[in-house]
Each structure stands twice: as C-alpha cells, then as structure tokens.
C-alpha cells in the first residue's frame, strides 16, 4: 500500500475562483491509498513548498499528487521540493486543474469541480504505480554553434567566445552583418550603422575562438543537449577562400551585370562579387546563376555552342578561382545551438493599391536606407529611382505588412514608427527643401528617448504626421498622387508626391520554418520561433540546449537584438560551465524477453534512438539509446507485442488512470 499525499492549489483565484477546492479535497480524502490532503493559496510559493516537504516527512508519504497549474509551468519546482524531503522526484504526479479545467470551464463551476475531482482521481491512480527513476550523467561538448551572423548572432558569438569557449558561426549569405549592415543611421541617436557594426564584424573574423563559415546552412541534427552532431552544408563559392585577398580585380574585369541583393536591386553587381566593401569575410564569390563560365557550361551540356568566359580566372593575381569547387557537408559536434536567423522585410507587391511594385518611385524603407547610405548605390544622394531627380515631397506609409489581417500579418513590427521618424529627419538633413508626410495608425515610440525623437521629427524637422490610411496611389505623369484620409480632421486628403516610402514590416527569413523543423523546435503561425516561456524563458526553446536570439523570435530593434544575443550567450556559457549533464530518465524501454525484433519502433522513432541489438542467443531485438530518446512514446504506440514502455508513462500507469474513472 502506497501512502499518497494530495496537495490542492487555489492559484489565487485562477483555480479557486472556478473549482470548489474544499469539495475536491473532501473527495480526495476518500480516494484509495490517499492518507493526507491539504489545500493551499499558492502551492508554488516558498511556504507552499515547505508544507509539501513537511507533510512528506511528518506523514511518511511515499507518493505525491499536486492539483495545480500545467506541469510545463512548475513540474520542476515541485520535483525539487519532493526531492528535498528525501523522496525520489519522479514519485510525483500533477493534475492540471488550471489549463485543463478552471481556465477552460469558467462558465460552469459545478461541472468544473466534478472534472477536477476526476483529474485528481486519475493522478492518484497513476502515481500509485510510479517507480523511482534516476537520471544519467553525460559529458558536455563545450562548443557552440551560432546560426545567423546578424547583429544578434555576432553579439552572441563574441560573448561566448570571450568566455573562453569555441564558437562556429554559420551564415547563409556570403557575409555576416545582417540587416544592420544595410542601414544608414540608427535611431534615436543617429549613429552611423556601419561605423558601429563593422568593428564588431572584424572582431568576429579575428577572434581566436570563433570560426566563421559563410554561404552555409544547417542541414541535419542528431543528438541532444551537450552532444549535438550537426551537418552543415557549405555551398561552393568557386573561389579558394584561403588564398583570395579580396583585392577586387575580378569584379572590375567581370563582364556580367546583375541586380545586387545587398542594394535591393538599386545597383548592379558583377557575377563574381563581394556584397559590400566592408564584408566579412572579404572574399569574392561567384554567382553561378549569372556567371558567363557557368552559363557556357550549361549551354554546352544542352548542345549549344556559346563562347566561354574565364576572365576572372585569368586576371586573379592570387590565382584563387576554383570553377570545380563543390558544395561540401561539414559534420561537427556541439554542446549548444543558438538560432539567430533574423528577419527580412515584407514584400510590398502584395499591396495592389500602392501599385503592387509597378511604380518605380514607390520604394521600401530598406531601399531608402540604401539610397541614404554613403556607401549605397548613389553614394548617399537621395534621388528617385525613375529619373534620378531629387524628390521634394515624400510620403511615408506605415504598417505595410504589419497590423494588417488581410495580408496575414496581424502583429506590429515595432521598429517602423521609429525608422520612419529617422528617415524623415534624414531626408530633411540631406535636403532642407524636402517635405515629408507620414500616414500612421498609431505612433508607437516606446523606448528610451524614442518618443522625444518622434516628437523632434515633427517640431524641428516639420514632418507632417497624418493619422489615417492611404487608399490608393496613382501614378500621374511624374507625380504619385497619394489618396488617403486624415482621420483626426475627418477629411480625405490628396498629396501629389515625388516619392513614396512604404514602411514594410518585419517577417522571419524564408528558411526559418525549415530550420525549425530540422532542429525540432516550435515556430508560430507567422514563422517566428517560439520561446520556452514568453516572459521567463525568452531565449530558450522547449528543446534543451537550443537557444534563440534576435528577430528570429519576433520584431525587435538593434539594442534589443544585442541584449537578446548576450542573454542567449549567457545561457550557453552557463550550460558549458558544467562538465556533465543529467539526462531525463523518462525514456522508452524495451522488454527484450518479449520483443520479436520487427523493429517497427525503430522506423517511427523521430530521434533515431532505437537500434537493433543481437542477443547472445542470436535473437535480434530492439534496443533504446537512452541519451537520444526524448520520451515521445511513438514506439510504445507502435509496438505490436506491447513490449515497449515509457518510464513515467507506462501502459500500466495510463490504464490505471483510465480505470480509475469507472470506479
């Protein structure tokens, strides 16, 4: 006979306001093997935990049931409390009376109470069949993988490296720097973006603990916290990075011109190129889609005869061109993974009313950044893309791809209000004759010195803020007629503009969901990665050892991304400060006496944790690698002979739960 203690939590009014806790307590007293019942305002508080501890000792309890919030919230807390009383921490079961009961049945208190009683009854039945479980110790590989070399990833990589651990920084693009490297100035201090970022990029390149792999992405993951094995695909640059000096001769000789991604199509680049002069690493890369040599190879394969081009190979002073270089897979071991894949801006061609991308002088805010940048396509001269004249009337439209359910973007992109203020100030600084208008929904300027900055745009720079949406932009001759509404005045307005800037919103990079699936971490409906807890675990994922930073999680500005990168780095170094890690003992087991060796379990296992094992009598059976098993239970559901079982959720425990409902 077990001696079970039941502890019921009111959770303030969260549970107590709906579920009649005294009635549940009364019912619990009559349940089999229950010898002690207690209720508590907040069981998770220190006095609450102390009472559990005391009751275990005083009443000689050997099993504990807690009726409270979701185990996702406080299971670890309670396991510690149980352990401190000398009991095995896995002799605990939680009945979720909040998320599974009070929060969803608030309109029917009576039946919610009945359900709460049944939940407790099930937990009691299950816990009486619990057994002590013991975690295993595994060594930690003290080496971090940072995915994404934007400012968040750069900061994280530097912080981890400075703590004395090795870092591999993987970047999809040919250079690190991310979106920040495309910006001209930063709000609200108007610091030059490149001037504050490029030194950090150089630090990354020169740090002895950091290895940078560009043009690369993560393709496969095996293992678990402390012991990940990762396949990284490095795409061929067709240039030997170890020899290339970045002198740029090849770029001047190359005959091809194609729109530059870095300058958002506002300037052309050669087929062999360096994205921008401060790129890290400063090494050339060949764009095989546009390169004349690779064009020649493709045409020849289809039997057409076109002239070959290998001018870069002929002229490279360092002889670094390698046309035959192939993509390669690099497999390495890591203890932790930090995801900082960043964002891209919303593609405004979805807005037909703003021209759908048909009007050359309707540009995105990031394109304006390139126009304003001294290293941009016009060397910082702000001109209209169509005819290279200086725009005098500029209209900004906020929330393009933000706060718009019709475009599937319900969220606020957070940074646009501020960068519009910045850009309108910069326009005036560039040319005092410019008049800017900003159509806005709300001015969201929450942040240190942010509201003052937006106010300054209006007071000192004469930027006219119009509260309302734009219904239409019509191109008439050289002017763009902007039809909108000033909802504060209650009037329709019409502005003949020279240029329109769309404040395009923040969205995750294209590869984000695919990466999330590879890493087995969750992402939301907008493809942002999901934190383990939005308030209290903002840089962790539900998967141990995988951390998040920057705009991959949601829209944020530069200081927040940097802070986020540092925060995630601290979590990584905390992990690396230990030599071994305890693994979760709630893993699958196979009863090898009964196993027939069909290995259906190995087929369904998403973690490759089940392998065949040959016994001494020659029989082949399934065997679980406990360090790889995540305890998902798929093998248990699949096993035809019923010999797979999940510790902590055994078939017997689950059956006991169900059976308890009939009694």
């Amino acid at each position, binding site marked *: 006979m077990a001696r079970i203690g039941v502890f019921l939590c009111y959770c303030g009014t969260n549970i107590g306001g709906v579920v009649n806790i005294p009635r549940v307590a009364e019912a619990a007293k009559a349940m089999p093997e229950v010898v002690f019942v207690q209720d508590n305002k907040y069981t998770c508080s220190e006095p609450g935990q102390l009472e559990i501890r005391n009751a275990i000792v005083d009443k000689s309890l050997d099993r504990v049931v807690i009726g409270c919030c979701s185990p996702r919230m406080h299971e670890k807390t309670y396991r510690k409390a149980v352990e401190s009383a000398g009991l095995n921490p896995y002799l605990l079961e939680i009945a979720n009376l909040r998320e599974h009961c009070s929060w969803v049945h608030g309109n029917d208190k009576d039946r919610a109470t009945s359900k709460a009683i049944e939940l407790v009854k099930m937990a009691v039945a299950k816990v009486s069949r619990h057994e002590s479980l013991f975690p295993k110790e595994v060594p930690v590989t003290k080496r971090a993988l940072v995915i994404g070399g934007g400012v968040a990833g750069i900061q994280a990589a530097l912080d981890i490296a400075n703590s004395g651990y090795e870092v591999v920084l993987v970047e999809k693009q040919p250079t690190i720097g991310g979106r920040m490297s495309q910006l001209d100035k930063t709000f609200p201090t108007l610091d030059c973006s490149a001037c504050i970022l490029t030194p950090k990029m150089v630090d990354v390149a020169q740090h002895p603990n950091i290895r940078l792999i560009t043009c690369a992405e993560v393709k496969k993951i095996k293992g678990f916290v402390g012991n990940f094995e990762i396949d990284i695909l490095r795409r061929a640059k067709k240039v030997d990075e170890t020899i290339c000096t970045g002198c740029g001769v090849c770029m001047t000789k190359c005959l091809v011109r194609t729109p530059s991604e870095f300058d958002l199509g506002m300037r052309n680049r050669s087929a062999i190129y360096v994205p921008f002069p401060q790129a890290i690493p400063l090494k050339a890369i060949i764009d095989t889609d546009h390169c004349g040599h690779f064009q020649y190879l493709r045409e020849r394969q289809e039997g057409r005869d076109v002239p070959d081009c290998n001018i870069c190979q002929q002229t490279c002073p360092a002889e670094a061109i390698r046309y035959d270089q192939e993509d390669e897979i690099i497999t390495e071991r890591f203890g932790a993974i930090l995801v900082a894949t960043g964002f891209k801006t919303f593609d405004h061609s979805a807005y*037909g009313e703003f021209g759908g991308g048909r009007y050359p002088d309707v540009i995105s805010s990031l394109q304006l950044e390139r126009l304003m940048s001294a290293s941009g396509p016009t060397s910082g001269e702000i001109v209209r893309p169509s005819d290279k004249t200086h725009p005098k009337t500029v209209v900004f439209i906020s929330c393009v791809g933000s706060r718009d359910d019709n475009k599937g973007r319900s969220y606020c992109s957070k940074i646009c209000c501020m960068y519009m203020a910045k850009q309108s100030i910069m326009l005036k600084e560039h040319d005092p004759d410019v008049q800017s208008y900003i159509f806005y929904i709300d001015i969201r300027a929450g942040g240190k010195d942010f509201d003052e900055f937006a106010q300054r745009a209006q007071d000192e720079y004469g930027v006219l803020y119009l509260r309302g949406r734009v219904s*239409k932009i019509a191109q*008439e001759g050289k002017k763009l007629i902007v039809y909108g509404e000033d909802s504060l005045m209650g009037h329709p307005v019409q502005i003949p503009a020279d240029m329109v800037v769309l404040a395009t919103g923040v969205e995750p990079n294209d590869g984000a969901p695919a990466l999330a699936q590879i890493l087995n971490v969750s992402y939301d409906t907008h493809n942002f990665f999901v934190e383990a807890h939005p308030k209290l675990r903002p840089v962790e994922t539900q998967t141990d050892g995988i951390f998040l930073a920057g705009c991959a999680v949601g829209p944020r500005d530069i200081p927040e991304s940097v802070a986020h990168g540092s925060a995630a780095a601290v979590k990584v170094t905390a992990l690396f400060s230990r030599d071994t890690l305890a693994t979760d003992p709630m893993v699958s087991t196979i009863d090898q006496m009964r196993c027939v060796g069909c290995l259906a379990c190995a087929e369904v296992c998403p973690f490759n944790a089940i392998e065949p094992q040959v016994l001494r009598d020659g029989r082949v059976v399934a065997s679980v690698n406990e360090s790889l098993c995540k305890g998902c239970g798929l093998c248990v559901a699949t096993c035809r002979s019923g010999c797979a079982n999940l510790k902590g959720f055994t078939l017997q425990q689950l059956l006991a739960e169900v059976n308890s409902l009939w009694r």
Partner: protein
Amino acid sequence: MPGAYAYYPGCTQESSAKEYGESTKLVCEELGIELHEIDGWTCCGASSAHTTNHLLSVALPARDLQVAEEMGMPVAVICAMCYSRLKYASHELNDPKTLALVNEVIEKDFQNTTQVLHLLEILDKERIPVRKPLKRLKVVCYYGCILARPKKVTHFDDEENPQIMDRLLGKLDAVSIDWGFKTECCGASLTLSRRDLVRDLSHRVLEAARRAGADCIVVACPMCHSNLDMQQAGIAEQHGSKADIPIIYFTQLVGLSLGLNPGRMMFDRHFVDPQPLLREKGVI
C-alpha cells in the same frame, strides 16, 4: 469556343442601360454565343436587399441560379452589381447550412452548382474576328468598384489593377491607357441621396481620365455609366469645368469592331454623345 449560357439581363438593361443590353445581344449573336434568358428572372436584390436582410439578399439570386441550374448552363451577366450579388450568393451558399435554409425559402432543391460569369470573362476566351479595328482609339478602362471586389468572392481579376477589359480593347486595336482609377468609386447609389458626393467622386474619375489623355472611358457597369455620363452636366455645375468625355460600354465597341451597324449600338441614348468622337477617329 462559343457556348450556351443562361442569360441574366438585370433590370437596367430594359431601362437606363438599354444600349448595354441591346449591344450585348447583337455581339453575342454575331459571335455565336447563345444567350438563353432565364425564365422568369427576378431582381438580384441590389442594393436594398443586402442592406436590409441578409437571408433575402442570398435567397433572391439563389432563385435565379436555381433556374439556371435546371437549364444546365453557366450564367452570363453583364451588370457589375448583378454579377456581384450572384457571386456573393454562390459564395455564401457554399455553406451547407445557408444552402439548406435558402432551399427552404425558395422551396427548391438547389445544389449550388451554377457557375456565374461576367460577359468580360466569356469574351476573354473568345476569338474576336475584328472587321473594323478601332484605329488606335485612346481609351481608359473603368471597371468600377464592385466588379473585381472582393477577390475571394468574385475570383475575377486583380482587385487593384484588373486587365481583362484592357486585354479585350487591345484586341480591337484600341489603345488602353494605364491609369490609377480603374477600380475607384463613382459614388454608385448615393446618386439618389447624396448627389453632391457622387458628383465629387465621379468628377475625380473623369478628371483622372482626362489627365491620362483618354478619348473616352469604357465601362462594364450600368451604375458607373449612369453616374459618369448622366452627371457630367451636374458635375460641370458643381465643379465649374466640363469634362465632356464620352462613356461607352465595352459591348458597343466590340459591336463596332465586329462591323455591326453603329446605329444599332444606340449611341444616341448617351448624354455625352460619343458619335462626334467616333466619327473624328474614323471608327463610324
């Protein structure tokens, strides 16, 4: 491939937009497109039904769609408003509960299989044997606010920058000028209650067409036609400038290009007479 259609004329083509209806019939006859008028067709419900009773606004068109279903033909519509109402009804009736309720109201067993097509969609797939090209007549195509919207209901064309009418006019050797007012509002039924607003809104459309350099505006909606054509005198009164720009149904221009008798296109019914322009351009 000319086909056979259950034709839903709509109330205006027997009254204010008679020339639209007549030119449609002549054009379809010439192209071999069979139009079988829906027997006993009733009002589509615009605009009173859908502003007063949701069920009525679905049940009224459903009755017509049901007859077409029995005829076993897709429905051809020319009025933009009728098109919108019929499309909305089909859309709403995709919900089985609504369909059951409406069937109870109309006392029929309607399955909602009827396809609804605007004449523009039908002509878009036809080969037009142009006998009298329009000789680079400069037009702007005005689709009005309702024809292409909302896309999830009509599946007609791009909501903001439709092309279907421009394509048709291009085939007839007219020059369709790209402009920003293809789908702006003319004021529609406010013409009864707030004529001043209609004159403001229609004025914007007429002025934009003039600035774009168009000889005339081509329309596919009787309401748009009525506001833009009939109100021009009133607009001149209200805004002090007379646009004097002819408003022509696309069917009339298709008719001319097919070599049909210009007299049968009923241009004399227009308030702003297009005939001097068409004569000047050598089209008639």
